[in-house]
Each structure stands twice: as C-alpha cells, then as structure tokens.
C-alpha cells in the first residue's frame, strides 16, 4: 500500500505518504490564500522525500472539510483528478477527524476550526482508552463560537485559539496533518480498527455546511425618478 493523503481545509496545505505501516513523508505549508499554488509542489515533494514514484500510489485520501470553500476545493479536485489519472480509488475523510486523531488523552473533547465570518466548524469526540481511535459523536456543524455546547469539554484546533472567551483555553493540535488523515485511513482500509470502526471513510464530496451566498434579484430598479 502507498497512500497519498492531502488536506486544504484550513490555513495549512498538507500532504503525506503512508506505506501501510507508517507515515513515510509529510509536508505542511501554512498560507491561507495560496492553496492552489502550494499543494501540487507539496505532493511532488513528499514523493521525492520518500523516493517513491507517483505510479506506486494505491489510494488517495483527502480531507473533505468542513473548511473555507475555495481552499477546500483545491484538495478535493486534486484528489479526484489524481485518482482518475492514476486509476486509484479516492477516499474522503472529515478533516476534523484528522485533528481528533492527533489529540492525546481519553474522554470527551471538541475540535473547532476557523469557519470565518465569526463562526467555527466543530465536532464532538470521545476516546475510550489511550491509543484507541477517537469516535465522532456529534457534528460536523458550523456555529457561532458562543453557541458551541462546550459543557466543560476541552477544545482543540484553530477555532479555540481564535475565540478563547467562548472555546479556550485552546489545546493542541491546532491544524490537521495529512499524516494523521493517512494513518486514520490506512487503519480503516486495513479493517484493523477496533469494532465498531470509529471513523468511516466517506466520499470525496466536500462538507460545505453552508449554501452559496446568492439571492434572486428583486424588482427592477427604475431609472426615471
């Protein structure tokens, strides 16, 4: 297995390769406005770092958000086109699950990321025991920070650093790593997760959670007064 994972749902553009046992290369560049520029070079770089050829890729995993739309689509269209051109399957993973994968400790916690417009994307997780995969129990949703039902649970992710009054203090990690998505997907594809499978792979359909801003025009504006 050679799994390529990528995510552009947040400010960080990230790509990783996983050989079925472990992450063998990983890159991350943070620049919220340059996803379309940075992703392809990052993928080329992880292949180069690992000394592997693109034709060896067996699976593609992409973070499907939720996240700001334009950046999110860069990862999804890249994954879909790579999958079509290389003839390999494309799997989606909720990007918040990738952040949860990196959260240490047990019990209940939340992951919140920046949804812009003074809102956050968030989901609630539970981990039974150290080392066990986290299970998503609620979400993903998009809400105003004050409306997230924190209920004393620790919150990780950029959302918590942006809105410390409602969600803080923020715990690490702040951003999703492609390596975490790769590990999560590799486990799920191998079918070796603890039953029931805590995280399910999904289609590569983006989790927009919001409709496009558009309203049909009203009555014609008159030019004669």
């Amino acid at each position, binding site marked *: 297995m050679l799994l390529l994972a990528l995510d552009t749902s947040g400010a960080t553009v990230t790509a990783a390769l996983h050989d079925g046992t472990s992450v063998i290369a990983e890159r991350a560049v943070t620049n919220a406005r340059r996803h379309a520029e940075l992703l*392809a070079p990052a993928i080329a770089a992880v292949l180069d770092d690992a000394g592997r050829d*693109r034709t060896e890729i067996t699976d593609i995993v992409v973070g499907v958000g939720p996240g700001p739309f*334009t950046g999110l689509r860069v990862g*999804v*269209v890249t994954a879909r086109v790579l999958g079509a051109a290389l003839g390999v399957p494309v799997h989606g993973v909720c990007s918040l699950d990738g952040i949860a994968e990196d959260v240490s400790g047990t019990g209940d916690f939340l992951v919140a990321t920046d949804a812009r417009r003074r809102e956050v994307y968030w989901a609630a997780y539970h981990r039974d025991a150290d080392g066990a995969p986290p299970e998503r129990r609620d979400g993903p949703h998009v809400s105003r920070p004050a409306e997230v039902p924190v209920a004393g649970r620790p919150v990780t992710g950029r959302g918590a650093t942006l809105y410390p009054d409602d969600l803080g203090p923020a715990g690490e990690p702040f951003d999703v790593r492609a390596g975490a998505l790769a590990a999560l997907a590799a486990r799920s594809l191998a079918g070796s997760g603890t039953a029931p499978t805590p995280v399910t792979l999904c289609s590569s359909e983006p989790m927009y959670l919001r409709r*496009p801003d558009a309203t049909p*025009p009203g009555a014609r504006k008159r030019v*004669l007064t």
Partner: protein
Amino acid sequence: MTDAPLVLGIESSCDETGVGVVRGSTLLADAVASSVDEHARFGGVIPEVASRAHLEAMVPTIERACATAGVRLTDVDALAVTSGPGLAGALTVGVAAAKALALALGVPLYGVNHLAAHVAVDILEHGPLPEPSVALLASGGHSSLLFVTDVTADVRPLGQTIDDAAGEAFDKIARLLGLPFPGGPHVDRVAVDGDPAAVAFPRGLTARHDLERHRYDFSFSGLKTAVARWVERAEADGRTIPVADVAASFQEAVVDVLTRKAVAACVEHGAGHLLIGGGVAANSRLRALAEQRCLAAGIRLRVPRPGLCTDNGAMVAALGAQLVARGRPPSALDLVVDSSLPVTTVRVG
C-alpha cells in the same frame, strides 16, 4: 499531423467547465459542462455556484473529452489551463485540476491567458493566424480590442470597456424586456422581427472628444440606462413595449460601436485581418455587420463557429499547442491563479 503534440486544455474562468483536446492545430474534442441553468434565476453568474459546479464537472468532463478524442490520458503530451482573467474561485478549480494531471502524467503544464486563448482558437478552424491581426473579444465578462503580433508572446490591448461588458449589457436589457438569462441569444432572436432604426439609442464613446481619449475603448452603461429610460417612459405613457424594435435598436447600437471601432483599429494599425471571439461573437447581427464593414474596408474577417466563440477548453488547448510548437517554456508547478491577469501576459511563468 500525427506527430504534432497532443495537448489537453482546461477552462474554468466563469460558468463553463471546458476540456478540449487538440493535436497540433487539429481539434479532436471539445467537451463543455455549463452551470448556466443554475445561475438563470439569479440573472447573472454566482461565483460560488459556478465553483461548486466546476468541482463536480471536472473529472467527468476530462473523461468525456478523452473518450470523444479517442485518446487515453497517458497519451497526452502537454497540458494547458486558464490562469486568468476570470472568477478567482472558479479559476482555482481548473488550475488545481491541471496541476494534478501534470503531476499524474509527468507532462509539462502551460498556464495561459483566457483572452489570448479566445484568439488562438480560430487557428483550429481557419488555420494559422496572420500576424499582425486585430482581435475583437466580446463576452459577458470582457469587451476588448487586441493587437496581436504573436499569439504566444505578443498581444497588446488597444482598448476595452470602461464599464459593462457587451454581453453583460445584453443580459441586462434582456431582463428589462422580460427575456431569459443569458440574454444574448434571446435578444438576437426577437430582434430579427424588429426595426434596428426604430429607436436611435446612443453609441458610447464615439463622440469626437471621446475618440481622443478612448479611441478603442467601449462603454455600454449609458446605452443600458437609455434603453431603460425609453422603456419606462413608454410604460408610463401606457404604451405596449415594442420588444422586437427595442431589442433590435439596442443590439444595433452595441454591434455598430463594436464593429466600427474594430475596423478602425485594423485600418489604423495596418492589420489586414480582424478576428472576432467571445460569446457575443455568436450574435448574428454582429457577424453580418462585421462582414459588411470588413468587406468595404478590404479586411479579411475571421469568426470561429459559435461553439468555439463561447468559453471552452479547446481554445486553451489550441493556445497550449501553439506555445509547445513555438518552443515556449512551460509554467512551474506553483503556477498562480490571477483573476485580473493582463492580456499582455499570454503565458504565466
């Protein structure tokens, strides 16, 4: 021609997802998926709606283009993609897709200018472009006059609209007259039964003092207001709006200025050929008047068939093939999207 490079082009600057395949200057496939129906009820293109549609259409359109051309993706020698100008979010989908293809196939990628691609597409239909030529590009997003010495390297703007694009004016007048979006084909259709001289609507930027400062520029905003005023006054007087006459008179005002300035640009710049492209080039009256005026001025007119005038991937592939043929270097993998890419930048480095 079987030795010429096989080039796949991707276009996503507005509401059309286009994927074209050319071998040299031979068109093999021109697959287009349009989201125009999703925009109709808004009376204009909604960028986020267009971008979502591009994402869903991209892989199916690439596959359809390859199937039509009878080629496999692995046969492709080079890729081209529209880097700009256009809607940033829409362009981003095409550019990211093209980069992914370049990575997967290990072939060079050319980021190209949308307007230069509108010029280059005619090579597929009418052969090599005489240089220099003047190009008139008129669409929902652009209205430009270009002086083309070398479509792969030297395209200079002579003038452009200072307010609305010509196609945008057609959309707005169509709405005023109760015709559907996009307005161009509907205005053209109803104008057939109208009198183009029924109402003397203004010709923007054609007065002597305007010609000094805006010799090859266009303005359609004043025309739009004039039509609206005329219609409102007629309504206030309780008259039935003569839709065909208003449409024909409006259309005449637009195509009169477009063709008059285009022919003048050819004459004044010593260009023996005028090329017309963009969605408005599908307008029957524009074609007829351009033909008449070019004939009178001794200028050869080149207009691609309507399907190649509107946004499509074949035009991007056509320009890509020219860049390959002339040995221009490809773009880097960190190629940028530039929503306001100047026409002087034919190829993004």
